[in-house]
């Protein structure tokens, strides 16, 4: 896991990924790899392309150039049909939880089981309740609708939905944004706990440095379409890298152009 990481096949890798939208290049030669079982947090300013990086990894967006490799296999150009089976190994927690409004909580959590895996509803419900238990949601809320829950609880449901299929990789898009510090800390704890106990690889995006410090093994910083720094989380505060120093310090002075 540490010294032999050069030989080990990364769980997930971006190679020279480039993407541009109408106005400007968003990703410009992105190279990043995540070793199995490690938790990587991607930090960077708003609009720097963190979400795009995630979406390209998931195949929700196609890169203009470069490759994405999953367990060493190039998955960039797969069609939707070919990609679908891969998703059984992936779980994602979206920024707003992205729960299905017209379904109950347990139906949301069990969605994959019922509609993709063809598991009977009764069994799926039980597994959903078990997943909810892992994120400390009581079975009482199983019959509620997403609209009836707070943002923090919705995120927990989203997490339960992401882990119910026993994934290898978990993605987190701004998991603590918009939550109060206490709820944010609770979510962070849950993420750390699940990633450890399930042995998942995790890739997260966040602005929240406190959250990053909690959930990350490693941190990478994205600026102008490239990775400008990569290191273990404890070096976040000690590194000399000017981009990191400016970002962590929250200053408008430095190499990062604050007028985006």
């Amino acid at each position, binding site marked *: 896991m540490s010294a032999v990481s050069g030989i080990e096949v990364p769980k997930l890798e971006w190679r020279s990924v480039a993407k541009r939208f109408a106005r400007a290049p968003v990703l410009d030669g992105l190279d990043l790899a995540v070793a199995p079982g490690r938790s990587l947090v991607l930090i960077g300013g708003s609009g720097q392309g963190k979400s795009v990086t995630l979406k390209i990894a*998931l195949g929700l967006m196609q890169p203009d150039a470069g490759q994405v490799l999953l367990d060493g296999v190039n998955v960039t150009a797969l069609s*939707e049909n070919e990609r*679908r089976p891969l998703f*059984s190994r992936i779980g*994602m927690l*979206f920024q707003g939880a992205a729960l*299905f409004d017209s379904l109950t909580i347990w139906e949301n959590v069990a*969605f994959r089981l019922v*509609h993709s895996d063809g598991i009977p509803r009764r069994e799926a419900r039980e597994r959903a309740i078990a997943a909810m238990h892992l994120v400390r949601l009581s079975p009482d809320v199983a019959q509620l609708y997403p609209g009836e829950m707070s943002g923090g609880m919705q995120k927990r449901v989203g997490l339960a939905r992401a882990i119910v299929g026993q994934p290898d990789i978990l993605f987190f898009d701004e998991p603590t944004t918009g939550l109060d510090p206490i709820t944010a800390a609770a979510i962070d704890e849950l993420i750390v706990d699940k990633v450890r106990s399930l042995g998942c690889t995790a890739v997260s995006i966040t602005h929240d440095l406190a959250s990053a410090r909690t959930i990350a093994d490693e941190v990478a910083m994205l600026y102008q379409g490239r990775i400008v720094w990569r290191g273990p989380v404890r070096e976040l505060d000690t590194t000399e890298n000017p981009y990191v120093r400016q970002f962590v310090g929250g200053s408008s002075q430095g190499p990062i152009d604050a007028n985006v």
Partner: protein
Amino acid sequence: MAAAVGRVAHFAGRGLHAAVTPRWFPQQILRQLGAIGFLSLPVVGMTAWFTGAALALNIYSSGDRFNAEQVMAQIVALGITRELGPVLAALMLAGRVAAAIASEIGAMRATEQIDAMVTLSTDPFRYLIAPRLIAAIIALPLLTLVADIIGVAGGWQVAIHMLGTSPQIYIANTADFLTAWDVESGLIKAAVFGFIVGLMGCYHGMTAVGGARGVGRATTQAVVSSAILILAADYLLTSLFTRL
């Protein structure tokens, strides 16, 4: 413009492919049938009644008294089954259903629910879009059938009260003049219109961008484009049918 047509055609192709090949989500199809079909009955029923009655009133006031009994029954029956039934039911559905579909799917797009569905190994075209297309194609002919019946009834009411026609004579005249093809051609039109309504709702919903305002725009576009395509298709189908 050509690019837009191309995009819609591509979308339509994907939707149809998802609709006719396994795997299907029967529960979703049934739910959509209820939402699109059954819940549109009141609107369609009222539209049909008033249209049939208005049509009969127009004939009455146009002064053709010689054959008024026959003519009124004939014109109402033919007008409703061939044109007004399918077209007006479809336009009502465009307003009600295309808007509802576009706003629902648009909102799902905006809140990343569509992306979430993909990450949950479920094809949104099969789970969301195909059921709506199938339901619309099935529901609109059925609704048109109801519209035909109620439209004739509306004209019948006018005939009884304005002309003093005997209720039975009006019905007998209607039955004499109406052919199966009149009703069938209307139902074929309705199936095409149903496809249009479902397609426009889904397409504009899926391609909505820009948050709440984008969803609003998508909803309006779905209704307007449905209406225009329905009327254009009506013209094409009518000219095709009247040549047969």
